[in-house]
């Protein structure tokens, strides 16, 4: 019953407040998702939207601890229930996942890219489309595809549930199919990432892969091996 959305400030997990949706069953569901999603959630910053659910301090603490055991940081809980809001405050968590002043020094998720109008329209969709560069220290994470028109600098990180397409120079780390999807691809006009991962396969690209006339390339898994072939977009 839970669903996940890519938000400008990070990931948002939506819970249901329907009659039959208990907190315990939904947390079980979340645990399964965390378990199955491989490294997609690792070091991510997430917010909850628990709608009208009335949750105790214990309920919230259990959820936070669950996330922490998967190295996921819970920073905000949105709710329409007064008791839940009060308990959220008692845990020192934010109550507005859209807060413009989110603690951006923790990790730089999609949140840092908010000046880009495309990021907003991509919320909750199959992918995120950005026309900008991604700098060192910034992590872009989306459950679907990531499409960037611009360069990705060394020290930056892209983590997509599906494909990664960079219309520019891709340095830094790229992880496509991070939910365990081996069919994902990584394409770039200049494919020079420090680390390239698709599904569960990793390849380190030698630092000297610096070419004067780079050509577009695509990485994909063929017979459990990472293949890099010419990309003819």
């Amino acid at each position, binding site marked *: 019953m839970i669903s996940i959305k890519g938000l400008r400030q990070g990931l948002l997990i939506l819970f249901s407040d329907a009659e039959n949706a208990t907190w315990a069953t939904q947390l079980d569901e979340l645990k399964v998702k965390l378990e199955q999603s491989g490294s997609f959630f690792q070091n991510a910053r997430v917010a909850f939207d628990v709608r009208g659910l009335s949750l105790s301090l214990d309920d919230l603490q259990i959820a936070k601890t669950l996330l922490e055991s998967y190295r996921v940081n819970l920073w905000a809980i949105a709710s329409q229930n007064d008791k839940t809001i009060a308990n959220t405050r008692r845990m020192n968590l934010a109550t507005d996942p859209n807060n413009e002043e989110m603690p*951006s*020094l923790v990790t730089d998720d999609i*949140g*840092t890219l908010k000046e880009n109008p495309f990021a907003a329209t991509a919320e909750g969709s199959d992918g995120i489309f950005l026309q900008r560069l991604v*700098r*060192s*220290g910034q992590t872009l994470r989306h459950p679907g595809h990531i499409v960037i028109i611009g*360069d990705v600098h*060394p*020290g930056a990180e892209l983590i997509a549930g599906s494909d990664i397409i960079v219309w520019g120079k891709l340095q830094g780390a790229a992880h496509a199919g991070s939910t365990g999807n081996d069919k994902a691809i990584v394409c770039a006009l200049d494919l020079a990432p420090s680390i390239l991962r698709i599904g569960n396969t990793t390849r380190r690209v030698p630092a000297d892969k610096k070419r004067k006339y780079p050509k577009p390339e695509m990485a994909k898994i063929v017979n459990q091996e990472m293949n890099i072939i010419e990309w003819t977009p």
Partner: protein
Amino acid sequence: MDSVVITITSGKGGVGKTTTTANIGTALALLGKKVVIADADIGLRNLDIVLGLENRIVYDSVDFIEGRCKLRQALIRDKRAGELYLLPAAQTRDKTAIKPQQMVDMINELRDEFHYILIDSPAGIEQGFQTAIAPADRVIVIINPEVSSVRDADRVIGLVEAHQKGPAMLIVNRIDSARVKKKDMLSVEDITEILSSQVIGIVPEDEEILSSTNRGQPVVLNSKGSAAQAYRDIARRIVGESVPLTMPSTGSFWQKLFGRA
């Protein structure tokens, strides 16, 4: 008054933030502007030393924030450069002593009276960075022409953008044209290409900086040297004059002596 608040920061420490803040602030004042330079590097304060004003500090910004003085009382006038004032940082406190919103309110109080307010910030990886950029209209990132400094700067430029304070402008400090020529050092072109950011100043490595710092006299006050000239050019660009960006002719004392610079 149409005031501009400029925060000067960097990826890591020791790249020349304080030297740059002191010199650009002084140069702006010498151009006839009313200027405050605020030290936001609490605990590591040294803007007062570079300006030779440390003995005149009575109150600092934390005293003001905590209600022990008026803002006026914390400002120290540097008479050598017209309307130049220092707002010192507290030496004995940590960087959490001022919250971002308090910084914004404090700087806003100065906006009516001054043309330029420059803030000497801690490096981007340090605590206090968020406070120092909170009131900024523009942010300048200082870099040294080294790969590691450029990489750190990339990170800070990203943070500046994340705080909606972008695009950051760059000053390349301590460049040595002879070493760039020998390809021992990154060139300004390399840096602009890597960072995709605008460079508003190129300051050479200049041994005069050290001696002037020790005397508490920013080089722009009286030197004809190349660093002093570079800082004056940056100040003129900040006030809106169009001054072409040129590679300063440096070289060490010996190179100049033998005419090989």
